């Protein structure tokens, strides 16, 4: 407990919260998007495909700036979020979560999509002959079979949320206790001539968190694989 200062503990706790919720909220959308991209046949699919990859291609600072333009308090979406739902993203933990989610989205979608494409469509057909509707097939056959991919996507999401810096600082800035995640703290530390020790400590914390989630993921993964008979 003495390893880190109270502010650092705050940053760690905040990072974990942001990473968890960013992953939690983006997963369903990622699954949906992956499904649409892998199975859908509609005009504009390629465009959607491109849009999904944008947060990866653009410098994260630009992503943050675009978030600011759209979801900020005066943004073209943000103002209605505030006026209609009372949701304020800028300068808040919720905003940091959104930034993390947006940045990790392409990674998650990609992982899930690859897993989805590996699902044997013959099994889906078989399920339908057994009376399952498309939706039912999705939940009872497709989804379980792509669980390893979803897990892998979730892991990527958590990892990239833990490391996310550029979009977060540009969109929600650094407000103590609200948006100061580990990377922001590390960033600050590396910009102080005497910050090396602190940067190192926080980096180690990041590493430990990452290895921890990886370990957890690999345990879950093994179970899933045994469950779906791909051990």
């Amino acid at each position, binding site marked *: 407990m003495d390893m880190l200062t109270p502010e650092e503990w705050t940053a760690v706790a905040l990072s974990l919260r942001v990473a968890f919720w960013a992953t939690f909220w983006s997963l369903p959308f990622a699954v949906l998007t992956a499904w649409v991209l892998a199975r859908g046949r509609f005009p504009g699919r390629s465009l959607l495909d491109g849009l999904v990859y944008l947060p990866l291609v653009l410098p994260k600072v630009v992503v943050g700036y675009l978030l600011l333009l759209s979801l900020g*308090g005066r943004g073209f979406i943000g103002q209605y979020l505030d006026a209609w739902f009372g949701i304020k993203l800028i300068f808040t933990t919720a905003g940091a979560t959104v930034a993390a989610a947006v940045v990790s989205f392409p990674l998650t979608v990609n992982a899930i999509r690859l897993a989805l494409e590996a699902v044997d469509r013959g099994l889906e057909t078989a399920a339908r002959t057994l009376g399952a509707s498309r939706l039912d097939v999705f939940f009872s056959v497709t989804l379980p079979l792509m669980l390893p991919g979803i897990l892998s996507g979730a892991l990527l999401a958590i990892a990239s949320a833990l490391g996310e810096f550029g979009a977060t600082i540009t969109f929600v800035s650094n407000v103590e206790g609200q948006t100061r995640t580990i990377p922001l703290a590390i960033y600050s530390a590396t910009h102080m*001539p005497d910050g090396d020790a602190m940067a190192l400590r926080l980096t180690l914390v990041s590493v430990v968190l990452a290895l921890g989630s990886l370990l957890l993921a690999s345990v879950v993964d093994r179970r899933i694989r045994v469950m779906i008979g791909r051990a």
Partner: protein
Amino acid sequence: QAQETPTVFAAASLTNAFQDIGRLYKEKTGNDVAFSFAASSALARQLEAGAPAAIFASADAKWMDYTEAKDLTLKATRVTPIGNSLVLIMPADTAKAVTLDPNFDWLAFLGADGRIATGLTDSVPAGIYAKAALTSLGAWEKVRPRIVGAESARAALALVERGEAFAGIVYSTDAAIAKNVTVVATFPAGSHPSVEYPFEIVKGQDNTATRAFFNFLTGPEAKAVYAKYGFVVK
């Protein structure tokens, strides 16, 4: 080519000025200079890692002290031709003139949820100076929860430009390039350590080509450029 052309490490806030000066230098002497603009901290660490730069222009005396202490730059060559002043800005449409003194009621000024954007107060120079100024004005503890620290003075500026932040504390040079932003007050010179841009030649790079450009950086043509971008020329 890399041997002929000196590489200048300059703080990102010097981007405009140095690029103009580099162009003037080329016109005058026919010689090229290469620049790398990044955070002073990043540049200092790159020097430490053996980056073959010739000149280091820091936005912050602390990082110059750091490279000196590590025996990376030549202390004897240190010059500080320019400085900057710290200003309080507001979006143009809500701007109101204020007087910054210890009696100024920051909380009344900011209202219920107004925020002040500036650089990260522990690492970005503008933020560090803002913290010092607010402290000396006795307002830091009150204002602290309202401070949002951006990754650079430019990012803080953007928050004010967009009206996301109620006010901002940035350099006057930053304010000069902003749109829709009004300077509502300048922090008293005594309220914070003076903002300085020390330049030094990197150890082992003190050759004629380097010297020539180093001297040009403090010459009259350069000073005209600094002034144009709002730096305080000494």
